[in-house]
């Protein structure tokens, strides 16, 4: 048995006087992920203190300075070389994402980039907290547990946002390798189909058991994700506006609530700063406990409404070390580890301090409220423990029995991270001309397009999620007469949380993601993602001028200047899109180092991936629309201009063609079109609306048709377009952004058109055809002849059977 003193001696590290190489070896053995400059800073700090650090201190520093917690790449200086020009970016995050939000200056942004989630106003009394993050590395190792704890983590983020928000929607986006991948895989890697099944099951079980509807999301398949799947988990929560601000006061007690602390998930944060390899620590993986988190949620919200605590945050990566460190960053904190309730009694001090056991929250509680708070949590069967107090001396002091475990200056911990300048290079692809591939018949291309993995029905996944719980899902993920058509976005009416049945304001959440554009130019990928997210939410009735955005960057190692260069391009795209659309970023996250060694030992990086998630209020949920055709004889209008920009498109992928121009967004015209459509939807003049994305006009019209079981006749000559386009294929399959196909009754046509401007800068809108009773997709080509006549039920069959065919 070890006495505290002996334990401390065993925990001491020898850092002073060691060479960089020795320190690196020490870091590797302990999974610390500190680089040379960071080790040097630690060494210098403890040299000035004239003592060796304890293991817990170095671990605390490593956690706090990890990519996961401090976003080093995004906040460090970068020397960016673009063609022949080189410039220095001091802080990529500040100069792109934050600068854009500051520039658009929206008064309804209540809290941005400060808290665990971004917060926007929702009516006069309420606010919405929105957060999306990734859980990629754990999901690669253990898909079920990784996805589950990912959902648990983001739900806790929203719960620990402000004084606590009630989660009302989960949304999940995944990137996987093809489920029918036949090639070799390295030892220990899961097959993509197993990853998919596990991740979907994890998201399902956690969300369903907590009673949160999972109603939004998407999946992207690409074999370059086979070793590094991406799992984006997002949650929207609702909280009263008075609960948005929180402040820790000196003298507040530090109260741990929820699950007990065990040896789970050690090194999760530092693990995210390392390439994924066979030697990943198994302790980084956990299984979530949804019921425990639900109890924390219920107790916490009750305590919030009684104003029993002054601040709260979740125990995420880094455990108590980051939760207490964050809360006490401005004041100081004193923690006694012996007071922490443990799962097993043989934990070392540093393990208690850094464990990432799930379902725990940390609260700052004024001493006079402690009794009442304990009673509220006890009523839910939820354990609490006072583990210390917040001070005002600016120090982080952690003891275990009589031994000092951590004694650090908050200033060093939060501001001492040395910034290393990195190199980034971007060079545009040499040729913009598309090349290669074999021509296909249009009807053949359409059939392959609807059956393509990135287009086909997601029903196999969606039906596993409970998207109805809480009873507010007005527009559901699957739409149409048979409830199986692909919706653009969901609309939620959070009456169960607000208790107000007279107020019909709701909100909608949509996503944009397309790594294929990023392969050509990450800048235009970022623009296209923002555009896609906004047009999706406009389609269902969301207000595009009130949209708030989240960014999630998933990239390979930023140590590679080319990868970092692409990341810089994408971030600049985000900045310009946010400014152009007047949509602020309110929160975001990045996950880097998504690469691992394939079966031949070569590094396999993921394609640079950006997920844009957008949240917008729906002024009246009763006016929201779905995407299926509602009847025969209605006019079809196409909003937005079609250009010859098939680079990165699904059509090129089907033909095996590479290169070409990626679609380019002009935000001003796009926003004008979205706003006009929104006005028309609000007046009830729109029967259905669906955005044109993968597969362009052809896939969009087919989806609207087979979901509503009405056909349509489209004349390509009427499509608003670049006059230089002479090809039917381009008009059918171009993925030019900002375009929406809208169904309007003949009586409403003139009223509908009045919402659209006629100026040079406004979005073009033209009647391109009409719906028909016979469920056939008919297209008239530029020369006036019929070029396509496809039975919609056959297209639907092809669209529906892809995923079940691969997963059984």
């Amino acid at each position, binding site marked *: 048995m070890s006495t505290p003193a002996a334990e401390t001696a065993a925990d001491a590290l020898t850092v002073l006087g060691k060479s960089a190489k020795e320190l690196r070896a020490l870091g590797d053995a302990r999974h610390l992920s500190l680089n040379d400059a960071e080790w040097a800073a630690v060494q210098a700090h403890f040299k000035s203190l004239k003592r060796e650090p304890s293991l817990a201190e170095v671990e605390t520093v490593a956690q706090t300075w990890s990519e996961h917690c401090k976003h080093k790449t995004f906040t460090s200086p970068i020397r960016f070389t673009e063609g022949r020009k080189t410039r220095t970016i001091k802080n990529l995050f500040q100069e792109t994402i934050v600068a854009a939000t500051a520039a658009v200056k929206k008064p309804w942004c209540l809290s941005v980039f400060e808290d665990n989630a971004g917060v926007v106003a929702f009516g006069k009394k309420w606010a919405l907290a929105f957060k999306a993050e990734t859980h990629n590395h754990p999901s690669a*190792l253990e898909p079920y547990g990784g996805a589950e704890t990912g959902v648990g983590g983001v739900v806790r983020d929203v719960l620990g946002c402000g004084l606590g928000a009630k989660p009302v929607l989960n949304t999940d986006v995944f990137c996987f390798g093809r489920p029918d991948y036949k090639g070799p895989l390295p030892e220990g890697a*899961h097959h993509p189909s197993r990853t998919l099944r596990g991740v979907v099951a994890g998201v399902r079980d956690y969300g369903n058991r907590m009673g949160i509807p999972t109603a939004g999301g998407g999946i992207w398949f690409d074999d370059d994700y086979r070793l590094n799947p991406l799992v984006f988990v997002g949650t929207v929560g609702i909280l009263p506006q008075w609960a948005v601000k929180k402040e820790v006061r000196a003298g507040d007690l530090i109260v741990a609530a929820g699950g007990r602390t065990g*040896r789970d998930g050690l090194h999760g944060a530092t693990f995210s700063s390392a390439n994924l390899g066979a030697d990943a620590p198994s302790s980084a993986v956990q299984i*979530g406990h949804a*019921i*425990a988190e639900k109890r924390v949620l219920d107790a916490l919200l009750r305590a919030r409404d009684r104003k029993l605590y002054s601040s709260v945050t979740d125990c995420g990566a880094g455990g108590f070390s980051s939760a207490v460190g964050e809360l006490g960053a401005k004041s100081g904190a004193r923690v006694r580890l012996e007071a922490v309730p443990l799962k097993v009694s043989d934990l070392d001090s540093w393990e208690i301090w850094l464990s990432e056991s*799930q379902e725990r929250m940390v609260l700052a509680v004024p001493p006079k409220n402690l009794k009442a708070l304990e009673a509220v949590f006890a009523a839910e069967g939820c354990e609490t423990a006072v583990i210390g107090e917040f001070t005002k001396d600016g120090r982080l002091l952690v003891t275990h029995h009589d031994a000092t475990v951590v004694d650090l200056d908050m200033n060093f911990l939060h501001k001492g991270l040395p910034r290393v300048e990195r190199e980034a290079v971007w060079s545009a692809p040499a040729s913009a001309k598309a090349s290669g591939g074999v021509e296909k018949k249009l009807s053949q291309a359409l059939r392959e397009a609807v059956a393509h993995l990135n287009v086909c029905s997601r029903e196999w996944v969606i039906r596993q999620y409970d998207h109805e719980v809480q009873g507010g899902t007005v527009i559901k993920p699957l739409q149409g007469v048979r409830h199986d058509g692909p919706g653009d976005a969901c609309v939620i009416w959070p009456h169960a949380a607000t208790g107000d049945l007279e107020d019909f304001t709701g909100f909608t959440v949509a996503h944009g993601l397309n790594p294929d554009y990023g392969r050509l130019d990450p800048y235009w990928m970022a623009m296209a993602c923002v555009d896609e997210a906004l047009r999706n939410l406009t389609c269902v009735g969301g207000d595009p001028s009130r949209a708030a955005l989240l960014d999630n960057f998933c990239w390979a190692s930023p140590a590679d200047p080319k990868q970092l260069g692409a990341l810089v391009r994408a971030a600049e795209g985000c900045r310009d899109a946010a400014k152009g659309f007047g949509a602020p970023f309110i929160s975001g996250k990045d996950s880097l180092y998504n690469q691992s060694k394939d079966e031949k030992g070569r590094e396999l990086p993921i394609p640079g991936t950006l997920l844009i998630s957008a949240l917008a209020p729906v002024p009246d949920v009763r006016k929201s629309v779905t995407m299926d055709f509602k009847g025969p004889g209605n006019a079809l209008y196409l909003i937005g201009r079609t250009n010859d920009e098939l680079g990165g498109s699904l059509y090129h992928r089907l033909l095996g063609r590479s290169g070409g121009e990626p679609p380019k967004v002009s935000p001003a015209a796009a926003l004008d079109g979205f706003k006009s459509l929104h006005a028309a939807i609000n007046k009830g003049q729109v029967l259905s609306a669906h955005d044109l994305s993968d597969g362009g006009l052809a896939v969009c019209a087919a989806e609207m048709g087979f979901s509503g079981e009405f056909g349509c006749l489209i004349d390509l000559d009427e499509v608003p377009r670049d006059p230089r386009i002479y090809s039917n294929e381009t008009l059918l399959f171009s993925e030019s952004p900002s375009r929406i196909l809208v169904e309007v009754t003949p009586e409403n046509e003139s009223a509908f058109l009045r919402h659209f401007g006629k100026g040079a800068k406004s979005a073009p809108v033209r009647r391109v055809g009409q719906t028909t009773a016979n469920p056939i997709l008919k297209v008239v080509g530029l020369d006036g002849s019929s070029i396509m006549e496809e039975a919609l039920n056959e297209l639907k069959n092809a669209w529906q059977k892809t995923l079940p065919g691969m997963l059984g």
Partner: protein
Amino acid sequence: MSVRIQPTNTHLIEVRLRPEHFDAEGASALALLQAQGLMALKEARVSRVFEIKGPLSANQVLQAAKDLLCDAVTQEHRVLAPTPAPMNGMNSWRVEVWLKPTVTDPVGETVREAIAEMGLPRPDSVRCALVYRLVGRTTKLQLEKAVSKSLANPLIHRAVVTEAHP
């Protein structure tokens, strides 16, 4: 004088679907194993085993099994012997998938609390395993490999494959 230390009681309870019901979980497990190449497997049925440790008597554990762990309409339960006698399998297999001791078992924790809420003594620990009974021609080695790629993740699970009497 020798002191006899009473070991903590360990009870194993198995809960399974009655044979007349279609076992969807089993069918899905069978498909996963067949996708791993074990085409000669013909049947799979799934049950759950609860390992309950603590100051409970055999009768108390039975009561928990009957009233808490088992849905009397569709399921049946039985007490397992701690070390089942080895039997000649004749193409019958039993695969137990346990979470490793270092991994939190949320089902086990919930059962532990629920037993205490029934008014029975609180168990020291409860762990839950999935048990697959398989019928079909294969070898232990092949089956172990297929299980590690489909039903269990060696990182967090311990899978025990035995030939078992049906």
